[in-house]
């Protein structure tokens, strides 16, 4: 048995051995592969961490300091620095193990530390340079460079360019005093740091440009606001004299007034009022254009606002021989500027009253417009707007043909102002009209219904 068992056992061992050998070779290959993956993952993680670090510093010089220190430590360097080459000045932050970071600058950048400018000439626009032994590398021929590198104790060297759209503007340099070369994962890390620093620089340039634009716009806005304020003053002052003297004359302060004179003074007075409301409209448009609308948003209870608007419109409604019905839920609140929401209602009601023949009805209703919305509708039984002109109604100075035919006064600014105010509040406006039958304007503004003590929103109540 043993006689032939031995060879059998030997064979088995041989086969097993071969199998084992194959297996172990595979295992080693697998291990190498795993280690490679781990190194790559570690390099990515390091790049990610340093790039994140760069982003946390609002000050660019601090970001550069942090980046170069991280590169020096993580890659086990004997020297690391980041160098920026600018027309007017060269700057660098130098890291050495166990030493404080040193910021150096040279202006004019004649003989600049740590390395001569020459190194940038050797770099391609994108490519990094890896030098295993700087003392013998043919690439570094200049005696200046060799001397500089020797003085810095540089043997193994890695230079990664910091690129900008205008070309190479600097470099991240890592070096060791031994011949331990920088591996491709280390190159990846430093390249990604250089890329992040380049991007941070570009962002800063863009940010500076944006800041300059914002400053210019702010100055423009201020001069525009000043202009509106001056115009307001210059126009209102002469109006004060005109309107004031008309009132005094009508009051008899200048002596008795005969009927014909009274009628003429009445026309002057009416047109003064008209001029005044035109000035107010133009000033409102000035404010809209300078973006000053909706500067003071607050919670505006709708019912009291509608009562105020109803009271303000009452004389005009009576004079036009109309009926005004107003209803609103007591609990509705609009989020916006009270004065502007009031102006929306006054402008819409003004139109309704102006374009509704005697005996007609104007209806204002405020309702809960669904989540986050209050709906305000102004309806009239007036002359309406021709179908083909409805799309232009919100255009400044546009006036419907049936309005001009009736010689109704107005500049065509009211609805444009309404639309601007509604838009500035983030609301919506729509208009439906049948010529000869009436007009319905619906405005939806941000708002809500306050829940009443019974836990339900109250139904609209006649005011």
């Amino acid at each position, binding site marked *: 048995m043993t006689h032939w068992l031995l060879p059998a056992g030997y064979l088995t061992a041989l086969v097993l051995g071969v199998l084992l050998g194959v297996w172990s070779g595979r295992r080693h290959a697998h291990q190498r592969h795993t280690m490679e993956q781990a190194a790559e993952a570690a390099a990515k993680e390091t790049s990610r961490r340093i790039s994140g670090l760069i982003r946390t510093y609002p000050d660019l010089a601090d970001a550069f300091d942090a980046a170069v220190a991280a590169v020096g430590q993580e890659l086990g360097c004997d020297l690391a620095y980041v160098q920026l080459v600018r027309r007017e000045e060269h700057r660098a932050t130098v890291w050495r193990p166990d030493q404080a970071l040193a910021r150096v600058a040279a202006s004019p950048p004649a003989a600049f530390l740590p390395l001569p400018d020459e190194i940038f000439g050797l770099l391609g626009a994108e490519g990094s340079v890896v030098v295993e032994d700087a003392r013998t590398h043919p690439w570094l021929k200049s005696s200046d460079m060799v001397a500089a590198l020797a003085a810095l104790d540089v043997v193994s060297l890695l230079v990664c360019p910091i690129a900008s759209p205008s070309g190479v503007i600097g470099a991240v340099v890592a070096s060791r005093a031994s011949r331990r070369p920088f591996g491709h994962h280390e190159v990846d890390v430093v390249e990604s740091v250089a890329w992040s620093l380049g991007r941070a620089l570009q962002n800063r340039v863009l940010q500076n440009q944006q800041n300059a634009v914002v400053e210019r716009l702010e100055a423009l806005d201020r001069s525009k606001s000043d202009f509106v304020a001056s115009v307001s003053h210059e126009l*209102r*002052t002469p109006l004060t004299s005109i*309107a004031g003297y008309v009132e005094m004359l009508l009051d008899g302060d200048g002596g008795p007034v005969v009927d014909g004179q009274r009628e003429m003074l009445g026309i002057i007075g009416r047109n003064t009022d008209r001029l005044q409301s035109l000035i107010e409209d133009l000033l409102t448009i000035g404010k809209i254009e300078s973006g000053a609308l909706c500067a003071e948003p607050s919670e505006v209870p709708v019912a009291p606002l509608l009562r105020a608007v109803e009271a303000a419109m009452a004389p005009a409604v009576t004079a036009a021989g109309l009926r005004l019905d107003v209803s609103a839920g007591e609990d509705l609140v609009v989020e916006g500027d009270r004065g502007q929401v009031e102006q929306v209602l006054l402008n819409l009601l003004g139109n309704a009253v102006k374009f509704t023949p005697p005996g007609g009805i104007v209806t204002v209703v405020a309702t809960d417009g669904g989540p986050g919305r209050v709906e305000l509708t102004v309806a009239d039984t007036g002359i309406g707007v021709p179908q083909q002109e409805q799309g232009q109604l919100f255009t400044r100075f546009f006036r419907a043909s049936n309005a001009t035919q009736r010689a109704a006064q107005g500049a065509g600014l009211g609805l444009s102002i309404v639309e601007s105010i509604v838009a500035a509040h983030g609301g919506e406006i729509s208009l439906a009209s049948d010529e000869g039958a009436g007009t319905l304007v619906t405005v939806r503004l941000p708002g809500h219904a306050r829940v009443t003590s019974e836990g339900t929103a109250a139904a609209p109540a006649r005011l």
Partner: protein
Amino acid sequence: MTDVEVGRPRPLVLIAEDDPDVRELIARKLRGEGMDVMGVGDGISALEAARTMRPDLVLLDVMMPGMTGLQICEELRSHVATRNLPVVLITARARAVDIETGYLAGADDYIVKPFSPRDLVARIRTGLRAVRS
């Protein structure tokens, strides 16, 4: 109308307004209402007149050369002699923030151009009554 308490038969109102037509408009109206008026066209004269003429009420235009109505108002409020002098500001600026600034400067009332002369008289009478009571 006599006013024994302030020792004058008619109340004296100081009008500080740089626009001569508006100044004259106000002066005419107030004279017609039985008041004495004195008009000045700039801030410095306004402050001086308020101190030397001892008016019963001051109307101050906000935008004036020399000193603004707001500055004059603050100045009047900081001196004992003029601390309780009623001040009505007149302005062409009608923004809420302008009106608030006016009251912060110590004004008793605030009227916006263009105003009704009748309304102005009513406010002046209110101002004069307030200081007497």
